[in-house]
């Protein structure tokens, strides 16, 4: 089926909802594999917050389960960053740092105006502040920990950098009337992330913030290869029992 992208608000809800849904799924893959019990709790906690946000957003656009389980890869609008495989703990933390900073700034802006997404943003911004703190604290610990953790953290930061440009391409339907200023978002994001990376004794990547694909690819339904496999796993049971309730 195709997503009911009938209005710009729906398009926005799907883009932001897919970010949260897909990243939540990736974090869910950590369950039972975290480096320390406290991180089992923390990563599951963040995954649950994001899943909660996804459910609210997707429900604004239609039926949450239809949207999550019955769309094909090309109909998903999440950032490519959100779908990147977990890698090692540093890779996951780098992804969290980039994304939670973005989400924190975006939702912070959305709370300023009385738009359709302000109520969701007001709830989510509190959760995201915690996610951002978690990612920043771990970036510092890994960056400024041992030689090995420093090297791994730098690798994570570098590897994911090319997926960050997409975050500053305007999301369809979100603009000044909602309080969103994409240029200001990019500037604040760069300042925030630079300061954490430098404080963690790491180097801010110098490469372009885009990959081989044009920035904004995920938002247009163009994803990276691991994403199809992720969806196959996520959707297979639901698709095996058409029309069933769970």
């Amino acid at each position, binding site marked *: 089926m195709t997503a009911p992208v009938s209005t710009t608000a729906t398009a926005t809800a799907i883009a932001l909802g897919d970010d949260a849904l897909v990243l939540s799924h990736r974090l*869910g893959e950590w369950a039972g594999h975290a480096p320390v019990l406290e991180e089992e709790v923390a990563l599951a906690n963040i995954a649950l917050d994001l899943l909660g946000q996804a459910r609210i957003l997707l429900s604004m656009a239609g039926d949450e389960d239809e949207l999550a389980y019955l769309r094909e890869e090309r109909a998903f609008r999440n950032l490519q960053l959100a779908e990147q495989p977990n890698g090692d703990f540093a890779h996951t933390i780098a992804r969290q740092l980039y994304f939670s900073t973005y989400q924190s700034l975006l939702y912070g802006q959305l709370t300023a105006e009385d738009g359709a997404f302000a109520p969701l943003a007001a709830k989510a911004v509190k959760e995201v502040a915690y996610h951002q703190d978690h990612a920043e604290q771990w970036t510092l610990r890994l960056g400024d920990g041992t030689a090995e*953790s420093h090297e791994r953290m730098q690798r994570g930061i570098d590897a994911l950098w090319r997926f960050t440009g997409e975050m500053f391409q305007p999301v369809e339907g979100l603009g000044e009337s909602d309080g969103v200023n994409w240029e200001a978002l990019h500037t604040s994001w760069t300042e925030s992330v630079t300061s954490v990376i430098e404080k963690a004794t790491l180097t801010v990547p110098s490469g372009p913030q885009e990959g081989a694909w044009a920035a904004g690819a995920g938002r247009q339904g163009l994803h990276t290869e691991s994403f199809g496999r992720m969806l196959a796993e996520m959707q297979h049971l639901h698709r095996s029992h058409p029309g069933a309730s769970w």
Partner: protein
Amino acid sequence: MATAAEHQTARSAPGGTGADAASTAAYESAFDAAVAADERIEPRDWMPDAYRASLVRQMAQHAHSEIIGMQPEANWITRAPSLRRKAILMAKVQDEAGHGLYLYSAAETLGTGRDELLDKLHSGRQKYSSIFNYPTLTWADVGAIGWLVDGAAITNQVPLCRCSYGPYARAMVRICKEESFHQRQGYESLLALSRGTEAQHAMAQDAVNRWWWPSLMMFGPPDDESSHSEQSMTWKIKRHSNDELRQRFVDICVPQAESLGLTLPDPDLSWNEERGHHDFGAIDWTEFWAVLKGNGPCNEQRITQRKSAHDEGAWVREAAAAFAAKHGEAKA
């Protein structure tokens, strides 16, 4: 009989080591009196070495079960069939990690450490519940685990809320609240399957068929083969025998299975008017001992995953310690 305050004074007397035989005997009788009077034993109180060792063994095994028990359920997080069920399952697995943390903390009040306990789990010197050595083969297994496995755990654990050792009893109060929530969610999930399509109903019945007997084994060996039971009951660590609790669980489950519209895989199950209990068939104790000795379907897989998570996370824990040392923080 002495008052509670007097027991307290005697039990708290300092200098446990090198105490002479007379004072040891005095501590012992104060301890016995406190247990008999249903008082709580606290970390700084004197306690028999065997009491301490028995509690460490039981609490560690309990904590390990929470941690290993995350695996069979986490196996379905990425495949949960609706976002609501996915959220419930994630929250449950998160709670289990939290229960493990409570229980390791409670065990640490007895002078052991989490690292030491994890090391014993990884090297097979301490055990975890045999139930987690069974695989989760379908989504319905998640519901069956909630209903039967958490149900059996609650039947076992509610009496532990009155256990003589204070920190354990208090941890169990918190854990039982969350467990009963999970148990109801598991039941509700199975109910949705049982009332769903034919394929869903069959999936639910198959899961119950596979999890019923292993759940009954969770209560441990029969009373006449249970090595720790008698002493644990005298110390009021345990309040009821394995067979008593198993009977209670069967009596609870039979009407629940009827409401679910599912059958229990036991042709010998029947109401015994005279006893006022359900009679049930013989448990396959050969299987029980095989699983306990490490030869169940998933024993090796569970420990291997736990060890690899721990080993692959070593550099993260080292980084946190190095950072803390550099920046003068208390070690996490």
